[in-house]
């Protein structure tokens, strides 16, 4: 039996209030009033699709060992790198390199489901396969996309042991129906008229694909318990379900009210949402539209109830901070030529040779543990840091990303350049041993205190805009 064995999700902490966006833009685009409801997720300035995918993957692997993963598929339409394996960065952050096939899947809003199909097929041999999907799409100022899009990620572990959702079948069609596109040089999508997309696209392409999938699975539409189909037009999934005989009650909420459309990740995000509460025997149909359509059908097993607790989509959604400052959203996303000051001009060139030598330290947050005295330390060094030891070449690698840390001292610095001043940073200590001066993220004045518990999170440290945007990733501490 092949299927999903674990799930995880990630949603950035900030939720942009749509009314605030509308209030700023209504002088220009009064027609957006109908969308000025609820909130959408908004990445912090140090988040992108890689960092979100890493977090979702960590969430997914709460119950499984990262080193058992043999394949990673990473779907996105906003991979931070065009040439540099984005999935490989996730692998390094999870401390897996050997015996790993890493692959990026891109180019369509159905990239997430296509990656999942590939992942399920790859895991038939028994190789654990991690499928991560994340998107951080930008809409033009005062556009509907700006209000509708959300940032987020999902991760699914595929395998053959302890399957929580068995793959019943899948069916795909691929046709170059261009409802929207984003060219190589474009920052934003360009889309055609919605009515045409609905009538000539969805209505003519999706129902036959669903019917073919149902036939292949020997199921009727009414057998589907959870019908998952992202769409920028909320009425469309209901119409498609109806045409195919799927009950209206099975159509899953699009999560638009408090998350937004997470692009190529959204079908998987909605799937995680469904799996969190799905019961044994439930049939889940996942439909993703984008120059064709992917349809997957799963049957939930008894294992789902036994899956160890994780944050999941509901957990990350519950960690929330409202953001009413639309200017901040624009500034975080380089949509506003804000005066950053001279301290923002320092060269961020990365010595790639250093990064390679130290990749376990930088991307994996791997420190050292002294074989002689047992002291855990970061970074790992040749001479033990314990003043009563100082043994040489005595340390084994010691992974620290999953450990909780405490704040020993901290400050809120208004002098250093930060896209979100003041910059919080401080000395964090790990109870097992080890400490370092870490940047904090997702932090508020009320949360950062001496003794506060912190969780390590994989983030963008710097963006080298002088060289086309090489992002430096490292681990930061965020309040638990």
């Amino acid at each position, binding site marked *: 039996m092949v299927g999903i064995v674990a799930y995880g999700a990630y949603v950035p902490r900030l939720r942009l209030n749509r009314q605030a966006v509308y209030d700023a833009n209504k002088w220009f685009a009064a027609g957006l009033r109908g969308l000025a409801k609820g909130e959408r997720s908004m990445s912090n300035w140090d988040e992108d699709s890689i960092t979100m995918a890493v977090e979702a993957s960590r969430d997914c692997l709460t119950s499984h060992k990262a080193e058992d993963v043999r394949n990673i598929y990473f779907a996105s339409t906003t991979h931070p790198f065009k040439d540099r394996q984005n999935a490989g960065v996730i692998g390094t952050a999870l401390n897996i390199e050997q015996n790993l096939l890493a692959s990026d899947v891109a180019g369509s809003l159905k990239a997430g489901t296509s990656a999942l199909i590939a992942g399920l097929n790859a895991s038939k041999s028994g190789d654990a396969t991690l499928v991560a999907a994340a998107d951080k799409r930008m809409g033009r100022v005062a556009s509907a996309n700006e209000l509708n899009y959300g940032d987020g990620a999902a991760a699914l572990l595929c395998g053959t042991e302890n399957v929580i959702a068995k793959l019943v079948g899948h069916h795909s069609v691929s046709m170059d129906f261009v409802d929207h596109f984003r060219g190589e040089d474009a920052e934003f999508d360009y889309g055609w008229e919605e009515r045409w997309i609905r009538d000539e696209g969805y209505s003519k392409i999706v129902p036959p694909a669903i019917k073919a999938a149902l036939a292949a699975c020997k199921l009727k539409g009414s057998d589907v318990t959870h019908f998952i189909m992202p769409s920028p037009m909320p009425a469309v999934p209901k119409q498609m379900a109806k045409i195919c005989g799927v009950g209206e009650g099975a159509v899953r909420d699009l999560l638009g009210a408090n998350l937004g459309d997470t692009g190529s990740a959204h079908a998987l995000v909605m799937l995680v949402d469904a799996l969190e509460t799905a019961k044994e025997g439930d049939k889940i149909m996942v439909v993703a539209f984008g120059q064709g359509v992917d349809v997957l059908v799963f049957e939930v097993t008894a294992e789902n109830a036994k899956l160890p607790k994780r944050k999941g989509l509901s957990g990350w959604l519950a960690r929330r901070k409202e953001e009413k400052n639309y200017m901040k959203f624009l500034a975080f996303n380089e949509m506003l030529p804000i005066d950053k000051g001279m301290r923002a001009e320092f060269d961020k060139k990365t010595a790639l040779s250093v990064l390679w030598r130290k990749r376990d330290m930088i991307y994996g947050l791997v420190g050292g543990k002294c074989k002689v005295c047992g002291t855990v*330390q970061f970074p790992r060094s040749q001479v033990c840091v314990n003043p009563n030891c100082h043994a040489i070449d005595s340390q084994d690698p010691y992974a620290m990303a999953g450990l909780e840390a405490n704040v020993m*001292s901290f400050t809120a*610095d208004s002098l250093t350049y930060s896209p979100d001043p003041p910059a919080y940073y401080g000395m964090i200590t790990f109870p097992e041993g080890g400490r370092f*001066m870490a940047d904090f993220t997702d932090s508020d004045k009320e949360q950062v205190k001496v003794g506060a518990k912190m969780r390590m999170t994989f983030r963008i440290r710097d963006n080298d805009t002088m060289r086309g945007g090489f992002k430096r990733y490292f681990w930061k501490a965020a309040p638990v």
Partner: protein
Amino acid sequence: MARGIKDKVAILGMGCSKFGERWDSGAEELMLEAYKEAIADAGIDAKQLNAAWFSTAIDEVHVGKSGIPLSTTLRLPNIPVTHVENMCASGTEAFRGACYAVASGAADFALALGVEKLKDTGYGGLPGGRGGPLQALWSANGTAPGNFAQLATAYMTAHGVSGEDLKKAIGHVSWKSHQNGAKNPKAHLQKAVEMDTILNAPMIASPLGLFDCCGVSDGAAAAIVTTPEIAKALGKANIVSVKALQLSVSNGSESGHNSWDGSYFHTTRIASKKAYEEAGIKNPRNEVSMFEVHDCFSVTELVTMEDLHISETGKGWKDVLDGFYDADGKIPCQIDGGLKCFGHPIGASGLRMLYEMYLQLQGRAGARQLKDPKIGMTHNLGGAPRENVSSVAIVGRYE
């Protein structure tokens, strides 16, 4: 412990430029300003110098590397010139080199000169960025005020001091230095400031406000050293000799091992203890007449007075509030205004501190002259609380 250099080296002459935003001067002009005063004070000719030590910390923004900039600027007679850099403790490092040359007999006359030209960067504060390509990948995006602010948070935690009490105490540290700086014509900031202004200043890195941070200044200072015997032979009276010179450098335990709580300077405790031993000082609280310490931030001074074993650990803030370190207190500290008001041109600061001790011991400190000081101690710190170079020097009357 090694024998040390107590009374083996005498200060023959010193000089110090006006500190401040010296838009009129480059590093070269500043060097010459300090040097001219020092060589005139020493009463020797440049051709008699046998060796020189030259300190700057942030080469990238002014003269560049090596000893050549000093040799070229002063047209030194092709003697050895060593460029030293030990962050903000560089000035004392230059002095140490010169003193050791004289103490060893390798030189009869040695020059130590430190300079920093910071006000050509286009922005306030110290230039950012250091540490090389690996540091750039992981070290927190911090600044000096942010690093030292954490000394304040850790100190409050370790000793149960309230935010309000600490803010008052560190406010008093700065208030006192402004009072002193107002009497110093060479100081960058020569204005006394009200306590309210200090306490209500904008936050730079919490809990440190604007007045908790020292000035970023241009300046240079120089010392010419010889042996006490040569100084006497040259007819010098009121000879000031070096009693101790000690340096302690972090080895990573504070930043990497959980035994340090962030509330003190591990290195300063070590360096000062060794210095007292070298100088033969048994009870520093009674024997030291005055201090110039590294008050890069107000809280640094407060904590340093504990680590120099003058105030009891955790009680320094009370001594400060009692006026113990004020100009009219038991042991005046920063009588020249300190880094806070005299200013902090990195490579010059250690020598600037010694300049004030030297003037005071010779009775030449003008409006701020203390009554009959015998022993002066400087403390010059480079780096951050978690990783630093701590240097102390003790000078006094040569009996």
